[in-house]
């Protein structure tokens, strides 16, 4: 229960930053893709740099809060990495949202984010439903080994 509160608080903070940083703004996303706005490249670059430094420190230490061991599982590389990413890029451009900002946009009161949300859910369900058939051609790991 206490942890759920922490997840809620961190999610809220993340939503606030995405909203006020411009990551939920259709025009800023389009201008990023047109190389007319540096804003989101600056945000991503800073987030990656600072996170990377923090990860190096934590991995060198090998422990996290309370002395618990730190275990970071890297994401698998397969044919789906390229195919899925190219498809996601089209969706990111069309909606001006990635999966987090879909929800933040709904919170902000942007009504067109509701059909986008429905689309993400249906897309997720479709892949889950066909996962065993997609695995071979795309080289994906067994479902049980996926993130959860």
């Amino acid at each position, binding site marked *: 229960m206490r942890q759920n509160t922490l*997840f809620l608080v*961190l*999610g*809220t903070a*993340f*939503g*606030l930053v*995405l909203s006020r*940083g*411009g990551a*939920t703004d*259709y*025009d800023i*996303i389009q201008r990023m*893709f*047109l190389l007319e706005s540096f804003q989101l490249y*600056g*945000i*991503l670059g800073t*987030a*990656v740099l600072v996170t990377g430094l*923090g990860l190096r420190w*934590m991995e060198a230490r090998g422990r*996290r*809060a309370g002395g*618990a061991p730190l275990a970071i599982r*890297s*994401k*698998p*590389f397969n044919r*789906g990495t390229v195919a*899925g*990413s*190219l498809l*996601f*890029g089209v*969706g*990111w451009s*069309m909606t*001006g949202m990635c*999966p987090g900002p*879909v*929800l*933040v*946009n709904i*919170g*902000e*009161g*942007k*009504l*067109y984010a509701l*059909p*986008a949300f429905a*689309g*993400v*859910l*249906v897309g997720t369900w479709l892949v*889950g439903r066909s*996962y065993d058939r997609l695995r071979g051609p795309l080289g994906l790991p067994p*479902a049980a080994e996926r993130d959860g």
Partner: protein
Amino acid sequence: MLLLNQLTPLPWWLAGSAIAVITLTLLWTTGRRLGISTGYENLCALVSDQPYFKRSGLHGPGAWRLPFLAGLLLGGLLSALLGGGWHPSWALGLWDQSIGAGPLAKSLWMFAGGLMIGVGTRIAGGCTSGHGVFGVAHLEKASWLAMLCFLASGMLTTFVVHRLIF
């Protein structure tokens, strides 16, 4: 470039640092790796009987993304309320200027885009958060390639939509 309610965006270095602090706090305190798109699997798991969504990783402690996703909704709501008020709207800047269709066409457009986000991120194994922020910072090969593909394909799509067709 203004946001909702004509707000000025936070400086990029501040927003980027804040995202890093949130990502590192999540890992430091709970051992969880930032990643949002899998949260849509947690949502499917609430109602679907498909074996894929029944796997143990999405249930029990694996349902942690549900409160995190609820927080994203709340964060957007707070951002609007604290920044000039919550005003539900269909307005979509550049899209309205160049494509200019009504709410039905806009909804279909958004649904189609959302579908590609859902299918794409599930096949790619992550999105801008899990691959783009965490994986790239963690120097993972899949994540670097994924992020380059996200951007290349987004650039091409925006160019085709806003510079060629409309």
